[in-house]
């Protein structure tokens, strides 16, 4: 069995920043990602980030990703790509399908003193007649096709969902040369930032709020050729007679994301159900779960955005390194306090408050599950 001090599952923003922090402190870190290139969602973010200069506002996600890869290499992080963690087992054993060229793999077990799970999230689907038709995909999948693989998912796209993912991906599809035939949103108003919505509106994309997709009609080849949308009342019930047909060959669904938590369930980590994030693992201010030595960061803890994932990753990396003796308690605490302050700043404003409250709820639930106040 291979031995590593720290194994990080996932090389997205949270996993990479955890690996960089821990390796920077002196720990021997192995970071594993199932994709053939690291960086996770960062390499799909061709737009500039918002926020303060501490959070690299004005920098494109893809450039942040490149900087982080260089830093990980400098710090000596070992990276296994095209490799899949298929299970975590008692005694801190990590079962890995170690990829060699993306097709062939070998099963290996790695014993890790500390494990950091930064496995991200998966896209939600919406059930309508024909949602399994070829041409229907997640908005994130459509974004990967245009921004990473440089392939257009289709000619004319109907986007379902007007959160920031739906809005940004609609715009990026247009930049890639696709036509966005309609933006459809079940709620009475747009979900994402006004600045993104304005871009879509200016481009002349018809926006249908209080609507959903009723049916997708395939052509002879079985691919999407028409999309039927329908109006919704205040109780989100379909209003008969409001159906409208749109010609399109692609449907992108931007209906939110679900934290990827299977590995933590295997280890029997304590979970809670939170109205904002759904079922998520509990963690403390070290980002440690109810299982000692098992840490989490990023979307796995509840879906947010790249900057919060980066910061949570740093905390997890610092905590794991400190637990191994690479940082003094005082130094670790000082650095974590700084990061928590930055996280609080990121979680301000109309979109952030709900997430700040959710995070506080998770931290309190962890303390309660421990039967008292945890040390900060």
């Amino acid at each position: 069995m291979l031995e590593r001090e720290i194994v990080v599952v996932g090389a997205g923003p949270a996993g990479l920043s955890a690996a960089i922090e821990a390796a920077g402190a002196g720990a021997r870190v192995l970071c594993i990602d199932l994709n053939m290139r690291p960086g996770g969602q960062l390499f799909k973010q061709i737009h500039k980030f918002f926020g303060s200069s501490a959070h690299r506002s004005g920098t494109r996600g893809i450039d942040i990703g490149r900087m982080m890869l260089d830093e990980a290499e400098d710090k000596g992080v070992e990276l296994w790509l095209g490799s899949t963690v298929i299970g975590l087992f008692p005694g801190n054993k990590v079962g890995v399908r170690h990829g060699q060229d993306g097709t062939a793999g070998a099963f290996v077990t790695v014993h890790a003193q500390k494990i950091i799970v930064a496995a991200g999230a998966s896209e939600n689907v919406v059930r309508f007649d024909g949602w399994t038709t070829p041409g229907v995909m997640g908005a994130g999948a459509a974004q990967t096709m245009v921004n990473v693989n440089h392939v257009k998912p289709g000619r004319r796209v109907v986007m379902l969902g007007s959160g920031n993912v739906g809005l940004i991906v609609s715009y990026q599809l247009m930049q890639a040369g696709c036509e966005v035939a309609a933006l459809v949103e079940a709620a009475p108003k747009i979900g994402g930032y006004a600045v993104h919505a304005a871009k879509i509106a200016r481009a002349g994309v018809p926006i249908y709020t209080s609507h959903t997709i009723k049916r997708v009609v395939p052509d002879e080849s079985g691919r999407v050729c028409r999309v039927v949308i329908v109006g919704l009342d205040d109780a989100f019930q379909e209003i008969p007679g409001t159906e409208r047909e749109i010609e399109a060959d692609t449907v992108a669904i931007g209906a939110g994301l679900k934290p990827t938590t299977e590995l933590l369930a295997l280890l029997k980590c304590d979970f809670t159900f939170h109205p904002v994030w759904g079922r998520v693992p509990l963690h403390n201010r070290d980002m440690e779960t109810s299982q000692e030595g098992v840490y989490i960061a990023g979307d796995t803890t509840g879906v947010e955005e790249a900057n919060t994932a980066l910061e949570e990753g740093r905390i997890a990396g610092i905590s794991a390194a400190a637990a191994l003796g690479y940082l003094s308690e005082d130094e670790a605490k000082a650095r974590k306090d700084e990061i928590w302050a930055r996280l609080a700043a990121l979680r301000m404003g109309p979109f952030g408050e709900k997430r700040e409250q959710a995070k506080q709820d998770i931290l309190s639930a962890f303390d309660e599950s421990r039967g008292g106040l945890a040390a900060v």
Partner: protein
Amino acid sequence: MERYDDEIIVCRCEEITAGEIRQAIREGARDVTGVKRRVRAGMGLCQGRTCEKLVQQILCSELGLRPNQVGASSPRPPVRPIAFGELADGEVV
């Protein structure tokens, strides 16, 4: 009682429809695991990663329950697909 969407696929890996899931609920399923045991929804290649939420939505609307009352999938290793050959050549955990 038939619904217009009874024919719609919910679990694409195992090709289980909304109607089959409603039938499982009529037969006594009260959570995600109960549905999975009766009709295999969530037992395929993706292990319910895609359909779990859809199954939860149907349970909630059929039984008048809230999302935190209908349970979640119980993952088993391997949580991602691996070929038998790759597993057989590896070491024992």
